């Protein structure tokens, strides 16, 4: 482990870490705004659930290298291709978890709320989502961590975030950049995971009182 290399490459490390974070946040953001409406539809109309899950499931089985490559003719060797591919991979987990979370809301709770006069939007915002939140956030956590891992694959199409260090170290038979890349990606994933757990705690204060 060559610490001198680390010292002299702090700029590169910062640049690639930032690229990594930007790709991840973008993918999660776009993934969520696509997955959430899809999940609402699937929860309301159960017959659509299997097809939606099926399609997002199939997308998920496409090996990541292939998905990025297949996007190249359409969106070029660009950040768009990377973020688009990463977004697609978040869909399965986000849709599935959001639907499962919504389906996990007990029927009697929903009926009681409707009886109290809650209209559909209020029902969703004030009853269903809060109850579904832990499972939804579990999905976000999984999507976040998976995405952080997948960003490294974009190194094969001239990006890579921290994954660029793997290609560099491989070509030069030099372990240090690879170790830095692995350690920082894992650290980033742990940080993202913990932050989302924190968000969950903030958003579900009633869960805290259980001992």
């Amino acid at each position, binding site marked *: 482990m060559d610490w001198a*290399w680390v010292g002299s490459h702090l700029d590169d490390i*910062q*640049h690639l870490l*930032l*690229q990594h*974070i*930007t790709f991840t*946040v*973008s993918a999660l*953001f776009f993934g969520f705004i696509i997955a959430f409406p899809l999940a609402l539809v699937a929860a309301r109309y159960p017959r659509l659930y299997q097809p939606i899950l099926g399609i997002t499931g199939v997308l998920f089985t496409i090996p990541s290298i292939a998905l990025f490559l297949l996007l*190249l003719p359409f969106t*070029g*060797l*660009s*950040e768009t291709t990377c973020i688009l591919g990463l977004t697609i991979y978040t869909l399965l987990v986000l849709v599935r978890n959001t639907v499962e979370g919504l389906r996990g809301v007990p029927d009697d709770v929903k009926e009681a709320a409707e009886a109290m006069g809650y209209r559909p939007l209020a029902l969703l*915002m*004030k009853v269903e989502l*809060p109850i579904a939140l832990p499972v939804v956030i579990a999905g976000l956590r999984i999507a976040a961590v998976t995405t952080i891992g997948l960003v490294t694959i974009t*190194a*094969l*199409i*001239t*990006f*890579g975030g921290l994954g*660029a260090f793997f*290609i560099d170290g*491989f*070509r*030069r*038979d*030099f372990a240090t950049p690879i170790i830095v890349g692995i350690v920082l990606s894992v650290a980033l994933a742990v940080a993202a995971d913990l932050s989302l757990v924190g*968000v969950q705690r*903030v*958003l579900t*204060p009633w869960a805290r009182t259980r001992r």
Partner: protein
Amino acid sequence: MSMSSIRTRRVVAAFAALALLSAGCAAEDGTLDTGGGSSDEGGGGPVTVGSVNFTENIILAEMYSAILEDIGVEVETRQPGASREIIFPAVEQGEIDLVPEYTGALTAFVTEDEVTTTSTEELVQTLSDELEPDIQVLEPAPAQDQDGLVVTPETAEQYNLETVSDLAPVADELIAGGPPEEKTRNVGLPGLKDVYGIEFAEFKSLDAGGPLTIEALESGAIDVGRAFTTQGIIGDKGWIFLEEDKPLIPAENIIPVIRADASTPEIEKALDDLSAKLTTEALTKLNALVDVDKEDPVDVATQFLEDEGLLGN
């Protein structure tokens, strides 16, 4: 307004802020710039420099980047790509502005034809005709880096190998290795078969003269390796390039290829000045510094530019 919805709004606001913050940092840092095509006059936006994933091309790309930054041009460097087949279309589409190329190989790629001429002028002319006005080829360097076939001294002795033709009678006993594109390019397996009558027992997809090929040749997993004539590591290992005794490999001068909308007269002059100083021997030494002495390509590139007095504008 309930407590939980206040909290919800705060959290959503925090997330939005985080997203905007990272987007802002990224924009400032240049991560979100797509480089080429962002301006219509030459040199308006940052120039995106690309390369293919082998030592020499990376050193050259670093040199181009350093020279351009030295004359005040904003540069964005892409991570190296797998091959010309991936990188050059990106130049054509404007994702990448500037790449270090090779006259013969690029001509073969662009014309989709078999190219064997050793006339640099002819190749440069063909490239100009094919690529302009959107893409310009600048002055070719004296340095050439051609495809070669490499064997260990033991293999050469065992099968009596000095020229590539010597491979023809024994090829079906030998395993060859090289980058995946060897299987489709004319200078690779198809050409070796047509021109020399060579058909190897097996071909292993490894990399373009990189660590996989070197290790495979070293360990005997392959008998013949595709390598490149400026790879200093070949000489360092005591391995032998077989002589190309039939016309197959064209001239391969290093040549900067740049999108017209990213180029300016100052950029062209800087790159031409650099190309003039690139000789085959110099390039071979630089490659060896990285591959054998394990130096950093950026350092090697910068040192060369300083030694040649190309920096300091």
